[in-house]
């Protein structure tokens, strides 16, 4: 089964260049239906106002961190099933475990390639379908 390339993906990162980097990598994987938010708070607002199929979020952000966003999403009745991929700088044990416990779908370590990103997305979506 192929992953639907029309997935609406939300990129959450406070660094605009980083969002562009991820957007480019997604494009290489064929994902072009992308939205952006600059922190957790903005992302949550967007998620509540329009349908999104997949979230890729940075960890370290002002206002609302990636972990806080994840917790808010999982605690929300409408959003709790939303696939959520966390981007971290290093595979720091404490960070990753905290995200996993909070129900993250998967995590990805910077820097990553389009292939790895693609793989992670497909894995999450397929697991969800199964």
């Amino acid at each position, binding site marked *: 089964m192929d992953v639907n390339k029309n997935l609406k993906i939300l990129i959450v990162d406070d660094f605009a260049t980083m969002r562009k980097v991820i957007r480019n990598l997604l494009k290489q994987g064929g994902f072009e239906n992308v939205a952006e938010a600059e922190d957790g708070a903005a992302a949550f607002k967007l998620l509540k106002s329009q349908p999104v199929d997949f979230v890729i979020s940075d960890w370290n952000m002002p206002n609302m961190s990636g972990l806080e966003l994840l917790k808010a999403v999982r605690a929300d009745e409408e959003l709790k099933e939303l696939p959520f991929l966390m981007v971290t700088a290093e*595979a720091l044990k404490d960070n990753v475990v905290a995200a*996993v416990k909070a129900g993250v779908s998967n995590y990805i370590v910077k*820097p990553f390639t389009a292939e790895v990103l693609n793989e992670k997305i497909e894995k999450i979506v397929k697991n969800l379908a199964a």
Partner: protein
Amino acid sequence: MDYAELRREIDEMASSFLFLEKKEIDIPTAGQFLNQIETVTGHAETLHAGEISRLAGGLGQLLEKVVLEAVDAAVGFGLFERGIVLLQAVADGYCNAGRYDGSVDGFMGELASCMGTPLETEPNGAQTAAPAAEASPVTEAAGKDRVQDESLLKDFITEGLEYIGEIEMNILNLEQEPDNKDYINAIFRPFHSVKGVASFLNLDGIRTLAHDLETLLDKARNEALAVTPELIDLILDGSDTLKAMIGQLRDDQEGREATELIDTSDIVRRIKLAEQGADLPKQPKKLGTILVEEGVINEDELQEALERSQIPPPRKLGQTLISEGIASPKDVSRALRKQAQQVTDSNTIRVDIKKLDDLIDMVGELVITQSMIRQSAALQSLGDRKIVRDIAQLESITSELQRSSTVLRMIPIKQTFQRMSRLVRDLSKNSGKLVNVLTVGEDTEIDRNMVDEIYNPLVHMIRNAVDHGMEMPEDRIKAGKPEKGTIKLKAFHRGGNIVIEISDDGRGLSREKIRQKAIKNGLIGPTDALTDQEVNRLILLPGFSTAEKITDVSGRGVGMDVVKSAVEKLRGKMDIQSAEGKGTTFVTGFPLTMAIIDGMIVKVGSERYILPTVAIRQLIRPDRAAYNCIVGEAETINVMGRLLPLVRLHKLFDIEPANRNPWEATLVVMEGEKRSKCLLVDEILGKEEVVIKNLGESLKRIKGVSGGAILGDGNVGLILDPEGLFEMAEAN
């Protein structure tokens, strides 16, 4: 909570494991298990079911390893399965007999060997394992995305520099509140973001440095390191280096000649030392400072050479100096050696500022006492040559002591400049203008107590320069200037003062418009011939800017008189240079310290007072005809065609004067904030530099008096505040 309930929790975990669709623990599932295990471990501990908590804890660590890909997923799956079965058996034992007869040691051993580390210790391997595995495809991808990288790189440069600006700002906040975690976080985050993007763009140098700084901050955040001024300096130096590296990327991008690679080894070494909590070595003195100290070049030559070194292609200061013949290669290389020596010795201690203030105070007293001895008539009548010589010797020692003690409180103006640069960035962002900030002479020193005082007037000037001086990008292009304007902040020492120049390359002052405005407001007559300089100074006059906003006068002048009076309150001077269409420079000079004042000593009756010299316009003895007194009105004096109110100092302080008639006494024309008045005194005794003493809490609020000083003859004199005197006179 009892064993049965614990058993139920474990069974629940076992059944969710049983219902796994694939023979694989994916991340969300691992998350669920980790939470369940946490609950089980906690409950097992309260029930003192040692085996259960050990076993569950071990399984938790196993899952973490699986998640971090430090343990093969299939192996982990198998172990986890057996672990759950064992867990159920142990729980059974506790449920039925209150204890477990078997042993979990065998399984725990297996867990430990699978994870490659003894249990209970923090596994570290995972931290590097994951990125390393992905290292090779990254380089391939980079080659493929070359074109895309160009535009990303551009974004990174702009955004990265912005972020570093943010860092600078927050470091200054942190310096004021070293315990505020929010500030540390606010610095940590930009470093982190810069690092993240740099890793994608294969900018290894930037990534490594940002990473090191981030680690350092992380330690500070977790209180493993104290936030000391040395640490703050180090972070500032680190962000400076990052800024330079990003700046270099920009130069490369814009096709400018590639400059020497920036050497990060020194800063990285300092960061590493700091991480280990070692004392931070002081930053070595700059080459230029050494050369100035050695007397090879003077401050002005240094500043000019520094500026020229900045002009592309940038050169090192030493190269500029040698090639222009300002310094000989020998001098430069000797200074370089001296600089290298400093790196090894870091003989500094930190002293409470209060102690320094006290010391400087006492030295001030010493100077005065010494001068009292020198002037003592009894001593002079002795006619002993040796004593005269010894006293002269004592005098030179005390004045040297005074000089070196005031230097103790000096700090570089660097941080003030950084705050100002940040302000420019914010202002230009808000107004849609493009502005570069260039700073020169950041190492120029100023009394620590002056730093905060001068900030506000400088801010006003910066605002003025950005809001009104700078044109919008499109207007700049029309005027044939680069789209991006430049504001230059420059500091240097000149004759016991620190001079700060704020220059912009904006539209400049319009001579004609200022003239017309001044004529309209009655400041000058329509036929007055003024030099450009005089015209420019008009905008500093009170009454130039009236209620009406005068943005039409190149936008300048709004409240500039307020800035001027703030500068003068600090006993500073201010001037403006401007060329229409080319830009404007505000020049401000401040005394290096507020501890000493240049004063004029005047006598009224038997009392002596000190008037600050900066406020004195002129000294006159008027003709009788110049004096006017209308009954019921104030007395006035005609001073070169202007009628100025007469203020009788003896009346204000209720003393019996020697002269009551202005034409027999002496008049001091003094400038207040918005007006001038003539002060009537008996005579002028002389001019002296005095050390200001405050009069203590109880006498703090006395109007017209700003402090006291011990005069050279040992008597105490009050330092008068012109503005306060004027107010007293107006109240009568």
